[in-house]
């Protein structure tokens, strides 16, 4: 399977090389494929390119202006590889872009779930303050079963994940994103393996954790019990909002999931009922028997419709809700990062003060340690300024992000609600039609 893909990839690269030469012309020809307004229509774009990809046709009626830069990605074609415990799913990641740093208008790579996790972790490290799009959960149990539904849900979630990154004005500039979308599989594997292992943290992280613990202990010893926190009332409100929101959303998602299950159960029950009624009809034989048989058949038809709707409900209503929950959890992680940055800033400021006092003291007594102390002080000052800058960047970014987040979520949820309503209406109408169609037959039976 990989060999075939490799052939395809090399063919594609040859083609893109050729096309690079005639790039301007080619872009004008290709652009009609991707109507991609990078802000509000993000999700519409995602769904649409999924549709065009799956339908096979590659032309959309609408085309953006030729000079507009775009980057769009699709995650497709999940394939199960490996055996038993080591089995995993590989996905085809197709990138279409006109960014100069990227290779050609189109590039296809093969990635697996842990690659996506790597990307997310890198972005989280580098872009503190930005709400990194959430990634579907790791699941040790379902992995074994790898049901078709699970695979599809994961694929959809990963596709949305990458596209959100690609349409974020800052994140799309990331080098790690480029690596993810363009690098060869071996490179990716190497990078991925650097992150694996129980001790995922780098030595510098471990040091930081150690320092944190140290400072906490010293705080307690010195009598400063409360950890240092911002006292921004608006920010407090926002934090409270996020934590409460997670609870509410989790509950809604739980019920949405149960609703899916109920659809399946009712469908199964209708099917069993239909079978039993058909048997009854067969044993009766006369007009009444026929009536029973017809009823049984309709029940079975409706059972199938219920199962179908259950799947739709899962993909288009429950999953978006789950995605919303994950997004909120991602924000919580950013909140934690901000708290860390704040603490660090405070600590450095304090340490700097102490060093300043010490330096003045040494200058006064004209010690020969002055030079050394000055040097240390300068270093510390630089660090402190850096920490302050980091913190302030986070604050600024978060303020921008929260507005964007709310808008995005209103849109996402609106779409989900609309699909939900359409699906339920469709189902209800099928049910009504099916039963109504039985009535003339019943009338005929009773008059006989």
């Amino acid at each position, binding site marked *: 399977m990989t060999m075939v893909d490799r052939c395809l990839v090399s063919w594609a690269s040859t083609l893109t090389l050729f096309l690079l030469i005639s790039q301007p012309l080619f872009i004008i020809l290709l652009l009609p494929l991707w109507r991609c307004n990078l802000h509000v229509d993000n999700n519409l774009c995602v769904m649409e390119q999924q549709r065009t990809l799956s339908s096979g046709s590659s032309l959309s009626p609408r085309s953006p202006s030729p000079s507009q830069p775009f980057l769009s990605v699709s995650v497709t074609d999940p394939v199960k590889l490996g055996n038993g415990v080591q089995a995993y799913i590989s996905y085809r990641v197709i990138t279409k872009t006109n960014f100069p740093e990227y290779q050609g208008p189109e590039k296809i790579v093969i990635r697996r779930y842990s690659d996506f996790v790597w990307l997310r972790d890198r972005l989280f490290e580098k872009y503190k303050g930005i709400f990194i799009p959430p990634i579907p959960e790791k699941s040790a149990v379902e992995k074994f079963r790898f049901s078709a539904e699970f695979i599809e849900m994961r694929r959809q979630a990963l596709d949305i994940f990458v596209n959100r990154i690609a349409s974020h004005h800052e994140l799309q500039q990331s080098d790690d994103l480029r690596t993810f979308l363009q690098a060869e599989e071996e490179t990716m594997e190497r990078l991925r393996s650097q992150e694996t292992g129980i001790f995922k943290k780098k030595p510098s992280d471990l040091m930081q954790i150690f320092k944190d613990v140290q400072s906490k202990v010293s705080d307690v010893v010195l009598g400063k019990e409360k950890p240092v926190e911002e006292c921004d009332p608006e920010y407090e409100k926002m934090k409270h909002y996020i934590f409460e*929101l997670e609870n509410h959303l989790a509950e809604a998602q739980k019920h949405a999931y149960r609703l899916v299950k109920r659809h399946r159960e009712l469908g199964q029950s209708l099917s069993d009922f239909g079978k039993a009624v058909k048997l009854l009809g067969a044993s*009766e034989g006369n007009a009444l028997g026929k009536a029973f048989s017809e009823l049984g058949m309709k029940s079975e038809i409706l059972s199938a419709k219920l199962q179908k709707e259950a799947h739709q409900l899962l993909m288009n209503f429950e999953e978006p809700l789950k995605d919303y929950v994950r997004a909120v959890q991602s924000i919580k992680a950013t909140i934690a990062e901000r708290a860390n940055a704040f603490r660090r800033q405070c600590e450095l400021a304090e340490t700097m003060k102490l060093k300043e006092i010490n330096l003045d003291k040494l200058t006064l007594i004209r010690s020969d340690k002055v030079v050394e102390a000055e040097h240390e002080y300068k270093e510390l000052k630089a660090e402190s300024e850096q920490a302050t800058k980091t913190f302030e960047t986070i604050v600024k970014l978060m303020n921008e992000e929260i*507005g964007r987040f709310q808008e995005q979520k209103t849109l996402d949820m609106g779409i989900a609600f*609309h699909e939900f309503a359409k699906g339920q209406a469709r189902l209800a109408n099928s049910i*009504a039609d099916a039963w109504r169609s039985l009535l003339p037959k019943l009338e005929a039976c009773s008059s006989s």
Partner: protein
Amino acid sequence: MMNHEQQPPILHASQDDGMESLILNDDDDSFPDHPHPLGPQSPNSPFNSFLDPPSYADAVFTSFDSNGHDQILRTPAAPSPSDYLHISVTDPLKEQDLATSLVPGGTTFYTYLITTRSNFPEFGGPGSEFAVRRRFRDVVTLSDRLSETYRGYFIPVRPDKSTVESQVMQKQEFVEQRRVALEKYLRKLALHPVIRKSEELRLFLEAKGKLPLAKTTDVASRMLDGAVKLPRQLLGGEGVAAAAAAAAASVDLNEVAQPARVGRDLLRIFKELKQSVANDWGGSKPLVVEKDKEFMEKKDKLMEFEQHLTTVSQQAESLVKFQQDMGETMGELGLAFVKLTKFETEEALFESQRVRAADMRNVATAAVKASRLYRELNTQTIKHLDKLHEYLGTMLAVNNAFSDRSSALLTVQTLSSELASLHSRIEKLEVASSKIFGGDKSRMRKVEDLKEAIRVTENAKVCADREYERIKENNKSELERIEKERHDDFISMLRGFVVNQAGYAEKMAAVWEKLAEETSAYSRDSS
């Protein structure tokens, strides 16, 4: 800081209805024809159905709302308005049983007020109305007596004496459940074209004071007589003569026809048992067999129907349960969104939040409405599919009637083989005595006794034959009766079920289409 939900997620009536009304009260009530589930079909009002029997003719089946009434308004095939018998059971009272006052205070029991309205001539002509008080024991008596008198008929089965439930349930609940069951039972009796005219029922409904019906036609003292004579009867041989005389004295010919009761005629029970064993395991066929092929076919078909019906009934129960679950979950989803709406509205800092809160409110409204529709749908579905359960009850009555027939046949078979054996014994004795010169006085006496026994037995057999034929006739007429009723009942049940489902599905589609419209701005097909 995360104060977890103050309201529990399960649907408590008051609180959640309050929340539901929060969303729904400013919507125009789009359900003006909203059928209140407990409205005109309240089981507590006894005067709904049989008041004006012909009114059902006006019911048109266009609106599904009226179809809940379908089966209640169905009148029996034959009776015209001038021939009704309406019974209601009300007002359970606790009374003391003063007779058994071994324990001070005595045992208590409940009595029920049985009110009858009828225009039968036997009850005193048109417009007569009267009431008596009866206890459950009386109902058992009535049921037993009807079973004896109307063998072969499909007599409705009475409610159970006492279940495990009655120990577990609260007394009030149990009494109420029994009251409902008694009413259903008496009404079924009133519907049966033959039994409604029975003397037993009339006495039960009319006779004031103590019920003037003996528990059974079996008198306790007979048991003693039978038991005393038993040892000699069992010995056979010498005792045969005495036995024959005793048998002649103690056997009431009409009662031969009745099924053997444990209290009397232990001998007869043994004989019939022997016969049935011989039927099943013996080498030779009995002298009389079930000949009616048409009956056998009908019976087999009916048994098959019953079997399938049981399965359908079980599946129907499951279906109702899952419909219920669906409605509940939909309601819970709606409530979760109500909370979300409230939350977002309170904490809104951005316009997009307010927009989202409005969207969620619409979703919540739709979900709660849908949940209510599911609940109503289910209440109606239960009513329709209840016919299935009722029918299974009827099958019990049918099985009883069929076993009446089998036991009557067994009596006939037993008497036939007894006759046959008596004849053969006479033959043997005559042959033996003819070989003795001058005759054999003792043997001749025995032959005389045997001939007397034959006479008695033949008379008994005539009775038994007549009874068997009678029962066969009853079976036949009853089968025809239920055949017609069954067809009508089930067609109306199916129609009710289907119309109900379709109607509620349409209402739900309307709810969801409204929501789709409200969220149409997000539709991918537009923009």
